[in-house]
């Protein structure tokens, strides 16, 4: 992967426009997703994600080729999001989340109503977490990053991250149990393989 990153960066630095496109397309889902989850505002997330790529491309000559590219650009994204959140000084309402809209592709055994209510409650619980714990939880579970990658991006020891993620899980589960969603979670599990993690339009 490192040589792959190196090759891509070298092509970008040589001014290859196709390489720029490859670079953006390789990481756009990750960066856009992270920005969206952290900022919880679609338009702001798009703006910040664009800014992240522009900054990353301008700084490619400073990238340390001994380290993977993914955590590097992720760090830029998280820093930009933090700056944006700091500027904003408020936390947005979770009404922006697309999963609150009925997911027509849901083929699980539970009703759409239950599924959406469950997702909503998960969101509410996640939003109630402390900011650093929320970031760690989202990056680990939603974005599927490894602890090593998150540690690099957040500049936090892995042990601390594991503690944060663990506490987050417990708090979310307690919240769901309080709301009577424990059975729904078990039913979701009973339905078999996990749902597709593909993108969903959030035009609504």
């Amino acid at each position, binding site marked *: 992967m490192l040589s792959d990153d190196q090759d891509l960066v070298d092509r970008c630095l040589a001014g290859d426009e196709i390489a720029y496109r490859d670079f953006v397309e390789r990481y756009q889902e990750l960066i856009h997703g992270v920005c969206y989850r952290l900022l919880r505002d679609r338009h702001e997330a798009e703006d910040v994600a664009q800014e992240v790529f*522009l900054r990353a491309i301008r700084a490619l000559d400073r990238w340390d080729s001994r380290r993977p590219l993914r955590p590097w650009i992720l760090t830029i994204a998280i820093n930009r999001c933090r700056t944006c959140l700091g500027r904003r000084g408020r936390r947005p309402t979770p009404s922006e989340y*697309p999963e609150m809209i009925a997911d027509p592709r849901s083929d699980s055994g539970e009703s759409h109503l239950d599924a959406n209510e469950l997702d909503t409650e998960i969101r509410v619980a996640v939003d109630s977490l402390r900011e650093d714990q929320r970031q760690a939880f989202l990056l680990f579970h939603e974005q599927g990053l490894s602890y090593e990658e998150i540690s690099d991006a957040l500049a936090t020891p892995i042990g601390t991250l594991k503690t944060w993620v663990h506490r987050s899980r417990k708090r979310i589960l307690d919240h769901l149990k309080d709301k009577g969603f424990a059975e729904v979670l078990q039913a979701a599990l009973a339905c078999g393989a*996990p749902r597709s993690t593909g993108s969903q339009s959030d035009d609504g």
Partner: protein
Amino acid sequence: MMDDQTFESALNAWWDERDHLKDPSGLESLPEELRREIDRDPQRRDDALAWIGLARRVSSLPKPAVPGDFADRILAQLPTKAPRRRGPGTRRFVAVIGAVAAVAACLLVVVALTSSPDSAPSDVAVVPPETRPGDGPPETLEPEMLVVDLRQTGATYSKAFWELVESPLGTEDSSSATEREDDHPEATALFVAPGALDELLKETSGNAERVRAKMSQRLAPVRETTFSAFSFLGVGAPQVPEEPTI
């Protein structure tokens, strides 16, 4: 049988490995000891299932779609010239230059601080360059000597001269400046306020060379009369008018 904490820790470690995402039931990948626990205790089984259900649900939440023209928008904002990659040699060179510049800046600050008597702590004696060991005894002036010297020149000094001498150092009020216009030229030296002289000598540590430099600096804008005024200090050629012989 595991206690609650051990069970939770083991479940947590298993979750961190994400093994539960690899099998359909979520439980098949459980380590043997954990599986025994959930088989034995229905409550723990429910707990484990809830944990796995949450993990699956969170990881499968629909992700926001990236706009179709996202890459185009970024590429449109890119500068036409690509950044040049710095080679390892260049990077090292830049780092060394940066370090040298930083050290030089620090040294300059240190030198500036130590060479300015005003900025030195009161209990630290600032030694002017002329008085460093080995340079010989410095030539010093006392206020009285300065006044006497000024009187002995017998020169006429302009008002501008005195203003220059006194304004940065002086302690006299402005009314005295008006009075001195009417005084006899030979008495002008007395208009140098003792406080001003003290201040000047204090600033220069009484070092004659520094007194001259200071005077020269302060009187530079004033022309002929001024030069004749401080010529006794050794700056410029002495132009002391001789007393007319009767």
